[in-house]
């Protein structure tokens, strides 16, 4: 057992790093979908914006100021984009997921095309800040320091989001909206404001994830689709509208993508959807989605 653990240590570690990134990416999508029943297919495009903001401000040079500026700019960009998306999807409330998907996918296509026009289609590299852009020894294995830091950042963000949602009155309002939107309206809360707030917050996290993911995945065309797919799988596995679900889903997919592929490389192509299918068979509403009727 210990030998097995030692052999696969790097894969497990890597699964945690990828899981952290996926959590930051997916939690916003989960809250927006679970809470307001809005399927935002533009979520991947927000990540892509973040990735290119990261590239723009670091520009292949390792620097903390550039990296932190990128994070701040991406956060603002994401929040504003979230507000815009929230307003844009407002008229579509009650018209079903397909209309929302059509609108947000259209926005995503436009964003991806604009980015491709501005930055071209070459693959761009985002360098981790100084001190993190090298590899270190972890129990005799060489591992990129940046990915270790990513695990920490993911953990901190998970705790913050969890505290806000579970322990504050704002969080109570959000949870109440997830559970029963109409009732929250009935007691005099403007649903649209809650939705706009959650949308802005979730979109901000997606854009921030783009910057954070830059040193791992780089910035390039097509990345938006890839991460959107991963985020959708994560929230379907975790269950909609649940922070805990998004976290568990992200960690599961992180390990599936990393440890799973390392152990069974021949099944690498099917692993992601295999896990998805398995969860859907056993728990059709996702691991933590039983409270929610959305979907």
């Amino acid at each position: 057992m210990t030998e097995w653990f030692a052999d696969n240590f790097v894969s497990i570690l890597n699964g945690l790093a990828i899981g952290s990134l996926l959590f930051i990416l997916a939690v916003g999508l989960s809250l927006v979908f679970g809470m307001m029943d809005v399927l935002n297919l533009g979520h991947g495009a927000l990540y892509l914006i973040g990735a290119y903001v990261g590239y723009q401000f670091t520009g292949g040079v390792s620097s903390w100021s550039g990296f932190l500026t990128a994070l701040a700019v991406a956060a603002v960009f994401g929040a504003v984009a979230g507000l815009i998306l929230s307003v844009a999807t407002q008229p579509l409330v009650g018209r079903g997921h397909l209309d929302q998907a059509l609108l947000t996918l259209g926005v995503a296509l436009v964003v991806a095309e604009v980015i491709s026009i501005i930055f071209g289609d070459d693959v761009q590299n985002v360098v981790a800040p100084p001190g993190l852009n090298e590899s270190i020894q972890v129990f005799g294995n060489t591992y990129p320091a940046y990915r270790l830091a990513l695990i920490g950042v993911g953990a901190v963000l998970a705790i913050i989001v969890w505290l806000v949602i579970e322990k504050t009155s704002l969080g109570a309002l959000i949870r109440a909206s997830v559970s029963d939107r109409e009732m929250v309206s009935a007691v005099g809360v403007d649903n649209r404001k809650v939705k706009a707030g959650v949308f802005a917050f979730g979109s901000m996290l997606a854009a921030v994830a783009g910057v954070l993911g830059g040193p791992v995945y780089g910035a390039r065309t097509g990345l938006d689709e890839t991460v959107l797919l991963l985020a959708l799988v994560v929230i379907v596995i975790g269950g909609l509208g649940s922070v805990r679900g998004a976290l568990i889903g992200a960690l599961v997919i992180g390990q599936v993508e990393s440890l799973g592929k390392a152990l069974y490389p021949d099944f690498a192509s099917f692993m992601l959807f295999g896990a998805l299918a398995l969860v859907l068979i056993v728990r059709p509403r996702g691991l933590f989605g039983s409270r929610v009727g959305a979907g």
Partner: protein
Amino acid sequence: MMQPVLSRRNALGVFGLAGLAATAGCGSSVGGGDNGGGSSSGGGGAIKVGLIVPQDGVYTPLGVDMKNAWDLYLDQHDGMLGGYEVETIVADEGEGPDTGVPAIQGLITRDNVDVLVGIVNSASALGSAEAIAAAKKVLVIANAGANAVTGDARNPYIWRASFNNAQAAFAMGEYLAGQQPEGGVYLMAPDYAAGQETFVAFKESYVGGGGTIAGEALTPFGTTQDFQPFLSAIPGSGAGATFVFYSGGEAVSFVQQYASLGLKDSVPLYGSGFLTEGSVLEAQGEAAVGIQTALHYSTEIENPANSEFVEAYQGAYDVLPTCFAVQTWDAALVLDLALAETEDLTGDSVSAALEGLGEISDSPRGPWSFDGQSPKHIEYLREVQEGDGGLINVVVEELGEYGQ
């Protein structure tokens, strides 16, 4: 050498939204001619050439290189090929056969071109072979490297001025068999036609030359962002070297992760040349230094044609040319030579002229000739080094000539 990646449509189809996205993902457009005129003035008459390169999607950088080289060749030759005044009609190949094949058909039927040049994606080349044969128009391929294009699925009108997938892998296999890295070689490639052809060709020469395979992994094509799960198996396999075939975005991720997981210093990395070719090399940065690859071209090849070509290309576009540019340059070159020999512009005459060319002596890649309908050329062993203006592929040695 490249096949379509997971598209927006495939990704969303999983979630039952295929229908909705079906029309949204493909932004194909057909550009107009850029060498206006084209009336039948001049002694030898005029020829319409359909240049089909990707202007949209992941292969756009290749398309840019290819069009640059084509324009440069015509600029330097007064817009003439073999005495014919050239009218170029550009069409967008897009990413895959879904856009590439209709674009070729459009050039043939609507624009009524005499000759076709270009094609990045092998599937587009294979998919349009029938239409090309029926129309009896010559296509000179400037990239698409699947062996079948000029092998099993050969037809007399499709010629290739680029390479075939097996060549670089076969050459590198022979070289590594000679080196005998202790513990054998670990193989990795994306799981699609070009990756599989690479495996087959490498094993044929390397195992045939007495080498041992320490392990191998075919990674899911187009969806693999993180190679760590596969890379982590390499140290345990005891391999003394790794040989891979990756290109584009995957090449960037792979090379960076190979370095960041500490493998670069312990297990030397070898590859087919696309691993470190063109814009990907810049994005890989420091992580690429020391990688050795085999390819039919490098900007550092020393011959008069190449120095002239590199200088002219840099002067015109302010970047170093890539193998994709050279392949298109050579497509123009062989057409120039062949058209000078033909009586008329029918596919049969042009094909016959191409067949009779013999050695093409003044190509930037060095002398080459058609072996069947695909090039027989020198494969160069190249090593990534720090140059004056950034990273370059320095030629270490010539690995010999390789054909179809």
